[in-house]
């Protein structure tokens, strides 16, 4: 049974589109396996949408900000509408393709969220196999990590954060046992030494946070205190 879920602040930032792709994908993968979070996300999205499009916002906006109003009027909406409806194109929904990846002779279904992400070549260290997911997010590194039965990750801490979403199998550390679907977010104060008795496959996101660039900092601002 799934025991570890994203905090609500993280779900909020996810729905608002404020998280980097790596963390957004992590939450989407978890929600695909977790009906509880799926429902929270659906409810919060509905609420945010309602708030975003309530008439009173426009009203307030227009009363408060005359300059902004002028620039709104400066866009030619008529022209934009004409331009859009000229197109007779329709976007066909493409059925989700199922992709798989093999580790240690075992085939695993790839979460559909990762379908269009570029995976690097696998790298091997002992019982660990890792493939980087190329999301181009500077200090944030995203990977698929496979641990063979009996393998583990040496004791470590992170300056920044470390997210693990268990895609298959199980592992345990000082705090307990984790199973498929668990969403485990650790920060710099957490120290752990995960071991997988029967093997597992994880989606991991980590940063070293030593040299946060301004761009990335900005990206993480909405959940700053949560992540550091």
């Amino acid at each position: 049974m799934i025991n570890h879920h994203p905090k609500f602040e993280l779900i909020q930032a996810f729905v608002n589109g404020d998280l980097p792709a790596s963390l957004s994908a992590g939450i989407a993968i978890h929600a695909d396996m977790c009906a509880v979070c799926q429902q929270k996300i659906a409810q919060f999205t509905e609420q945010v949408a309602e708030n975003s499009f309530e008439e009173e916002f426009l009203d307030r906006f227009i009363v408060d900000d005359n300059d902004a109003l002028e620039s709104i009027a400066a866009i030619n909406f008529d022209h934009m509408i004409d331009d859009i409806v000229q197109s007779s194109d329709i976007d066909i929904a493409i059925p989700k393709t199922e992709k798989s990846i093999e580790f240690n002779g075992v085939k695993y279904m790839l979460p559909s969220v990762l379908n269009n992400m570029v995976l690097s070549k696998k790298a091997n260290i002992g019982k660990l196999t890792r493939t980087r997911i190329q999301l181009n997010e500077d200090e944030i590194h995203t990977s698929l990590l496979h641990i063979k039965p009996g393998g583990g990750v040496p004791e470590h801490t992170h300056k920044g954060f470390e997210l693990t979403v268990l895609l298959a199998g199980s592992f345990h550390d000082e705090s307990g046992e984790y199973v498929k679907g668990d969403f485990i977010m650790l920060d710099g104060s957490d120290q752990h030494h995960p071991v997988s008795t029967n093997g597992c496959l994880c989606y991991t996101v980590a940063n070293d946070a030593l040299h946060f660039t301004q761009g990335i900092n900005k990206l993480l601002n909405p959940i700053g205190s949560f992540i550091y």
Partner: protein
Amino acid sequence: MQTNLLSIATNAKSISMTDKINHPQLCQWLNSVAHTRDKQAFTHLFQFFAPKILRIARAKFPNEAQANEVVQDTMSNVWRKAHLFNQDKGAATTWVYTVMRNVTFDMLRKIQGNKEDNLSDDIWPVAENMSSEGETFDDHLENENLLSVIEALPQAQQDVVKGFYFREMSQEQLATHLRLPLGTVKSRLRLALGKLKVQLGEKHD
């Protein structure tokens, strides 16, 4: 159109007590766009959503041209994807929000990370809007209808059913968690399951 916009805003101000969104109307317009490519309905949708999308985009993109691009791309997706909207799965506002958030996400990623991989629709599917395909969910629940049936149960029964099915707690764990005698948990679960059987039986007939 600009004048229309202003008059809409003025009207909104004068009737601000009733500023709730007219959801059935929005749904109807979206469906007209989907089924008959109704340009008039699209114009209504545009007049309702575009100024608000622009306001939201301005907060995320200091660059005016980029904010305008969010409006253009979002509304153009609404025009091309309207048939993917399913009113049984959520409000029109939720669907348009998803389209807008996805456009914004992909644009930010393009600007900040210089990546044009358009991942948003994989993260937040526009067609199904976080529909449940999760195995955990499917293992126990046949379909989403069940969720709505559960939501219709009295709260006390809902708590027990959700704990039992969604969180896979045992009856003993539930009793501890809900601070109820085990007998109460058992009888609530029995009652709730009885109702669910009837409801689902009806639906399947």
